[in-house]
């Protein structure tokens, strides 16, 4: 009983912080999502409007388009990061000259603030001054203009996200690969298993918890991407890169439509939780199926 009380006492500061900075804002946003509140409108009061915000949301073409491009962005970014991150992690498991320097350089994007990443990529991709359009033009005669081409803008935001976050995936997978015991691999080699069989039947099942944790983190992050994209494309051209985070930002700050913005935020939270839960159920739960 004494140790239990001590445990709660030690946890108390974290729980208090979590309550005030996590639980209270969540319930405030949930409460606000059922109200109309625009402080600069003719009626600046908070007025209860039932499910009207959600009713408007399911018919909002801007929101639905934003949801579509966000899901595409999340899919391409997270899958690419996972594949490239695993390949790099396997490369870092072997010794080669300059490995330490390469590993340090490769980790640098991770320590940059997203707004800086957006600025760097904006400088690199601006048609008249950027190095990327210049090189693409001189090498392949390809005209890269993220200000006019929706496909180019979308692709560049995906590549930027991959560049920024692949090191996180690599580091997590290196940690997972390093901690694997060597016995099952030696046993498999003695039994004549090839590399593909070893990967599918030994490596992947053993690193699955790390892969899943990484995918959860990246999925949650990618679904709420704002600053990088806002800096690079501002959500354009048109609504090609107006991801949900950017959509909420534009709805809440310039238009001060707090009630509607809260409703979108709640739906984004719902989608994030459901996506992570479905992933968990499909990858982990089948092993714990009821007899």
């Amino acid at each position, binding site marked *: 009983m004494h140790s239990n009380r001590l445990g709660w006492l030690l946890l108390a500061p974290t729980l208090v912080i979590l309550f005030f900075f996590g639980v209270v804002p969540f319930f405030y946003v949930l409460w606000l999502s059922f109200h109309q509140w625009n402080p600069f409108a003719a009626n600046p009061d908070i007025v209860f409007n039932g499910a009207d915000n959600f009713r408007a949301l399911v018919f909002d073409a801007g929101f639905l388009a934003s949801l579509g491009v966000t899901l595409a962005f999340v899919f391409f970014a997270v899958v690419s990061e996972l594949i490239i991150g695993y390949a790099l992690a396997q490369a870092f498991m072997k010794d080669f000259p300059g490995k330490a320097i390469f590993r340090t350089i490769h980790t640098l994007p991770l320590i940059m603030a997203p707004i800086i990443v957006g600025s760097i990529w904006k400088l690199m991709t601006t048609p008249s001054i950027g190095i990327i359009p210049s090189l693409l033009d001189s090498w392949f005669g390809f005209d890269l203009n993220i200000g006019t081409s929706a496909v180019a803008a979308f692709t560049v935001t995906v590549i930027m996200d991959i560049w920024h976050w692949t090191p996180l995936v690599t580091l997590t997978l290196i940690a997972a690969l390093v901690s694997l015991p060597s016995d099952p691999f030696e046993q498999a080699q003695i039994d004549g298993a090839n590399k593909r069989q070893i990967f599918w039947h030994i490596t992947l099942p053993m690193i699955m918890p790390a892969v899943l944790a990484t995918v959860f983190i990246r999925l949650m992050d990618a679904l709420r991407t704002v600053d990088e994209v806002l800096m690079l494309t501002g959500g354009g051209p048109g609504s090609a890169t107006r991801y949900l985070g950017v959509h909420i930002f534009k709805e809440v700050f310039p238009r001060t439509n707090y009630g509607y913005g809260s409703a979108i935020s709640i739906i984004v939270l719902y989608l994030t939780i459901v996506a992570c839960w479905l992933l968990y159920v499909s990858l982990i739960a089948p092993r714990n*199926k009821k007899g």
Partner: protein
Amino acid sequence: MTYTDPKDIQTPVNLEEFEEESRQSSKDARRQPGFLPIETNWFDRLFISVVIWVALSLVWLRFLEPAGLPLMISNAISIAIAITIIWKG
């Protein structure tokens, strides 16, 4: 010489093992097999019910409410589904 019935011989009982077994059996009793394809506790089933309630409400608002069916019907269906999942899932 006295005869001792084998039933009367007291064998040492591992109390920890016994307690673990009784805990396990009470847990098994609570974990009745339901219709959901995964093993769940009551909180999982409550979570699944909320997820279904939100999804059904959004679909209802988009497609069925414009046809004249009020959202209250969706809420009633969601509550019925929630009770079924929590009770039988």
